[in-house]
Each structure stands twice: as structure tokens, then as C-alpha cells.
């Protein structure tokens, strides 16, 4: 199972644990598995079927440009990070649609 690191502000869902385990071949599947174990956490990570715009995911230490589609192996380390506004990667031009309803 992949090791998932829980940011401090979401640890209320994991009973205070900073590090949990979850299954899944992709980040999307991993989140589904996390939701089964820690109900409510999905809603803090996803908005509809997308990763929340303020959250990015890192697999094995690399912030992934693929997000939910990124593949995960059973030995992976997965981090959910508060995406950083201004001056950081996402603000410098993304391929996101120019507007969302």
C-alpha cells in the first residue's frame, strides 16, 4: 500500500495521524480508498471530479502535473500539498480552462 502523508489541517479526518496507508493504481483511486477509510476527506481534496484548485499532489517527491491521473505504486509516497498562490508554479501559466462556471 502507498504511504499517504496527511497535511496537518486534514488530520482531524485521520484521527491525528500524519501518515496513513491507502490502495490505488492512480491518485484518483487512492482518494476513493482514503474516503472509504476516513469518510469526508474526499470532499476536502476534490471538488466534483477534480482536485481542488488549491491542492496539488506529489508522488514520490515530485509535484505531478497530471494530478488525479498520476499513477501510484504500492511503494509510493503521496503528499497532498496546499498549492501555493502567487509566484509559485501554478500561477505561472497553467493549461486550465480560462474560466469555470
Amino acid at each position, binding site marked *: 500500500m502507498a504511504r499517504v502523508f496527511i497535511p496537518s489541517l486534514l488530520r482531524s479526518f485521520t484521527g491525528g495521524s500524519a501518515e496513513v496507508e491507502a490502495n490505488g493504481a492512480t491518485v484518483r483511486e487512492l482518494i476513493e480508498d482514503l474516503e472509504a477509510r476516513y469518510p469526508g476527506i474526499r470532499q476536502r481534496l476534490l471538488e466534483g471530479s477534480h482536485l481542488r*484548485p488549491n491542492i496539488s499532489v*506529489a508522488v514520490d517527491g515530485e509535484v505531478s*502535473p497530471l494530478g488525479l491521473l498520476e499513477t501510484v505504486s504500492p511503494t509510493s509516497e503521496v503528499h497532498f500539498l496546499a498549492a501555493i498562490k502567487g*509566484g509559485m508554479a501554478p500561477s505561472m501559466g497553467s493549461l486550465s*480552462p*480560462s474560466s*469555470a462556471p
Partner: protein
Amino acid sequence: MSTQSYQVIGTRPIRHDGVDKVTGRALYGADIQMAGLLHGAILRSPHAHARIRSINTSKAEALAGVKAVVTAADFPPTGDRIVDLGEGETPLSYIRGNILASGKVLYRGHAVAAVAATSPHIAAEAASLIEVEYEPLPCVLTAPEAMRPGAPLLHEDLKTKEFGQQTDRVSNIAEHFRHSLGDLEKGFAEADIVLEREFHTATVHQGYIEPHNATALWNNDGRLLIWCSTQGAFVVRDTTACILDLPVSQVKVTPMEIGGGFGGKIPVYLEPVAALLSKKTGRPVKIVMSRKEVFEGTGPTPGSFIRIKIGAKRDGRFTAAQADLAYEAGAYPGAMVGAGAMTVFAAYDIPNVTIDGYDVVVNKPSTAAYRAPGATNAAFATETVVDEIAEHLGLDPLDLRLKNAAKEGTRRADGLKYRRIGCVEVLEAMKAHPHYRAPLEGANRGRGVAIGYWFNAGLPSSCTISVNADGSVTLVEGSTDIGGTRTSVAMQAAEVLGIPAGSVHPVVVDTDSVGFTAVTGGSRTTFATGWAAYEAAQDVLRQMKERAAKLWGLEPSAVRFEGGHFRASGHEISFAELAARLAETGGPVVGRATVNPRGVGGSFAGCIVDVEVDPETGKTSILRFTSIQDAGRAIHPSYVEGQMQGGSVQGIGWALNEEYFMGPDGEMRNSSLLDYRMPTALDLPMIDTQIVEVPNPGHPFGVRGVGEANIVPPPAAIANAIYRAVGVRMRRLPMSPPNLMQELWKKS
């Protein structure tokens, strides 16, 4: 990572755009001339915080030569939306609000209305004839002030977010987040020494010499054409399309040469306004900011309040560290506090860490990135506390840093583990540098050191490379070239193709003519666009091997490329010779690539500085300065050195004199290059550099971004040097003569 020796990489060719830039031929945004061109001017708020009661434009419209006036009312009626321009969810009203204020003005200099006229003088005069009735409101100018309960609110609808989750708390705190690692209490309990200090840093500006400018033509076919000075043409395209509610394909942005950016030319200010004026007049409209507008109406980098607490064992080993970072976002959410949190302890391996970040809105211009945004503020705090710990424990400041230095496998407080980094190598190079051991004699002189980190960005870049029959290639890219990246990108293609750098002709093109490319920022261009050029060159080679195979009647797999020649058993043809025969072997060869790379390698930079303080005036002079940085692999060492020198001097300016000097009414009192006091040639010695190369395993040539980390250490290093010179610890930036004198008085 290849350890082969390179033909092009590491050499110092003349930059491709050099002749145009030394002869005055290079065309920057303000140089645009076109038939029927109108000139725009913007009316800006004289209040830091006020409700707009009414705007009367009739007198302006009546002035001879005036062709149009626009206000926020001219935006399409689609303002009540949440949008995502890669900054996260943001109300469109915030994005538009910073372009032209609606309802309220939130800082002095906030754009309220704009005019297009037949000359810049008439436009400016007309703008002054627009009558705006304001209801002034109390303003808040610093983070601690704005966070206080009961503080005047900038946005009545702004509710604090905790890790992206909206709460019901209405306040000026747009966002709070926390990184934590280990057990903080346990870590401090283990420490033999715990120091806790508070720091204030002033708002500072990037200070690029070319003011913002934009020219727009809303063409009769409905397409919006824009020429401007920007770090990212695609960002301008997407943002302008979003603001004006247009499909992105209806906007074409042509990036002109850019006279400096440093992060400050990522946001959009003028383009949508010029577009609205063009829409009303049917003519192209150019707007160029004055220097005062640049200071008051664009995005400086946040002022901040920082509290740092570090615990260490007697032997110097850090056991715990805590940081509170409150950064001033300016009028709209989005301070660089996330990056500040990521970098505040980034140079150290500390087992127990908690970092709290606060993004706080205040009545100042909406902040923008500035070279390693957020990191310089944070390092000023951390690196001066580290220096104090070294003093208390009687350790050499570099030994203390080396003892705790982050290395491959170190886990940062945000959870990520470092891959191969050069922190230790940079510290060792500092220690070994002759400057560090050179005698420093004389009264009131001192030497300081500090280290800084910037993590760098990847992000998408696209390139095409067309092979010319004369053996040269044309490289088309979307990265605006601010400091010589045409050349550092071209050199990577040249290396792959086995041709001289001068045989690659790089061109930076508009948004219709190249694939999506993110901004020139985040130290990413030589890394990511260079990588795209590498991949496009590989694509060229693959196709040319097929052509060679066709010439020789072989399978492409039989053809090798080495030393600039295609070879197969018994056959050999140079790149140039084969280029001349493309027509007969199937037509043109165009290589293409688009990358969105992982493998970004962060960069560490350190500096050693000697200062002399005049204890009677508080003035600090820089006697000697050495900058040392891990470049991964230096593609063009002269321009790597140039980045190190430029970043260092911006750091020196930030340390010593630069600040937004605000009156209590929110007026910037020093909004000119006379009183903002960036360093001149006469204020500096030569800036010595030493490039450290710890190749980044994530990049084909080992490149790390070098544009930013160099600005991070100087303020802390200078503070540490000042302490050794005159015995006072400076915890407020700038360490200007009056501020330093204040501390000297307290001491005596």
C-alpha cells in the same frame, strides 16, 4: 546524467539578440508605432480605501482629442463568477477589480477609469478631468494591524480559508495553512538553547527599468491583438480572455522585448483596459505606465511579519523549529506566504517543525512575485537567528549550517523529501572560499554569511526546430527572453545537434505561433524550455537519421549520430551536408516538442559579505561580496554569473534602503527612482561569483534554475555582518541609515 564533455554547453557565445540590444534596434513594448494609434492614460485612486460614490466622465469626454473613456462598467456583464487562472479559485470580481476598481478602491494608485486620446498628454489631462466622488474609509497597512479583530475590512465577503476549506470567519486573513513534521514540543524540550525572534520586512518593488505597457487592437474581425511587455504571453492571453469573457482563441498576444520583470510582469494590468478602449474607438490603443504608476499601481512583493523559534543542542544540532509567517497580500488575496513557508527552513534537516502561514489583505497594491517570492523575507529571519545560535554556542556560522544542512533524503516540513541537492556543496564552497578566511581589519567592519533556497518551477514549454538548407536551424519558442535565455535554450539544441550555438536562430513568437508555454519565471526557462529544445532537437535527429538512411538505402536504426555527423557502416555525412539534401530526401524537417517536466531541481545560494558601518550616521557600505550558487550545470556561465550578480544586488538593495515608505494614509511617499533608492554602480563593489555544479539528475543536461535563489541570502548576510561590525542585531528591513541608527541608539 551524462558525464560526457560538451561542445557548446559551458561555453560563452555572444547572445543571439545582442546586436539588436546594443544598437537600439530591439523593439520593446513602448516602441510600438502603428497607424491610427491612440494613447491611453489611467486615473488612479488618491485614497488607500474608499467607496466610489460616482464617476463623472463628461468633462474628460468633452476635451478635444479624447476618443473614449472606460470604467469597470464597461466590462462584460459576467462578473459574478469564480474562475481559475491557475491561481486557484478566485472570484472574477477580484481579478477584474484590480484592473479597474468597482464599488471600492483598495489602495492608493488603484485604477478607476481610463481614457484614450490622440496624444499621451491629452490622455493624461483628460484623466485628470474625470470626477470621482469617494467616501474615504479607514485603511490598514500592515499584516498585524489587518489581522486584529475589528480591523477595517477590505472585502466584506472574504472568509478565511483553512487548507483550501472556506470557514465562516469574515476577516482580512484570506488563508491560513500549516505544515508540521514530528513533535514540536518534544523537539524544544530536547534543546539546550531556544531562541525566538520577531521580524518585520517592508514592501519592496522589483524595480525593473521598463515600465509596464500594452497596445491592443480589437480588430474588425472580432479578434483581439495585443503587444506588450510580459513574462508570459499565454498568461496575458488567458487572463485577458477571462476578464473580457472571450474564448482564448480570440486573443493573440505578441510579446515584445521585455525590460526586466523579476516576477512583476506576470500579472496583467493594462491589456484589458487597452482592449476596452480599442473596442470603443476601433483603433489601436497604447498605454504606458509612468514610474509612479509602476510603484503605486503594480504588484510589489509583500511586506511581512515573521516570528521564528529555533531550538538546538549544545553541539549545534537543531532539534525543533517553528515559524509564523504573516505576509501582506495587498488588496487581493495571494501573498507569497506559501513559498515563504516552503523555504523558511529549507536549508536545514530539522526533525520537529511547525510552520503557520497567513495570507493577509491590506490597503496596499496587490502583490506579485519578486525573484524567489516569499523566500527572502523568510531567510532574513531564519538566517539571522541561525547566526545568533552560532554566536551563543561559540560555533563557526558555516559549521553550524553544515551540521544541520539539508541533503538528499531530508524531509521538509511540507512533507516532501529532497532528491539530489547542493546545499552542503554550496556551504562547503563558501567555507573554502578565500573571501571567508581573508583578514578583515578596521573599525566598524564585519563579515556575514547566509544561505538561501528556491525550489524552482517546471511547467509547460513548447518548441519547434526547423532545419535550414544551410545547416542552421530555426528554433521557435514561447518563452520571453529577459536575461539571455534565447541563447541558453539555443545552446541546448545546438549541443544535441552538434552545431555551433550561432547556427541556431532562436525566435520568441506570439501565442498563435507556438504551443502553450508558461511564463519566464520560477527559474524555469533554461530548465524547461531548454528541455523542450533538447527534445525538439532529438526529434530533428530522429527524422534526419531517416533521411540519411534513405540516402544510403539503409534502415534508420543503422544510422548513428555522433560528433555532428550521421554515420552508418561505410557512410558519413555531416549535419550541414544532410541539411542541404532534405529537399531531395522528402522535404523539410521540423522537430517539435512540448514538455511539462518533472525533475525540477531546487537551487541553493550562499553569500559572504563584508560591510563597514558608519556608527555616526548608520550608513552601511558593502566592501566585498561573494555569491556562490549551485547551477546544476551552467549552460552559459556568463549569464549564470549575471543572474547571481543581479540577484545579489537586488538583495543588497532590499537589505539596505529599498522600501515602500507609506504615510498613515496609505500614500507611498517615495514613489520615484530618486527616493526609492535602488543601488547604483557607485554603491557596490564587484560582485564575485562562484558557480557550484551539482548536476540535477532530473534534467538531460543537469540544469537547475539559477534565476532566483541568489536574492535570498543577502539581507540576512548583511544583517549578520552589521552585527559583527557594530554589535546590533537588525530585525527590520530595510536596514537603512535611520533604522540602523535607531538600533545603535538603543544599544548605547
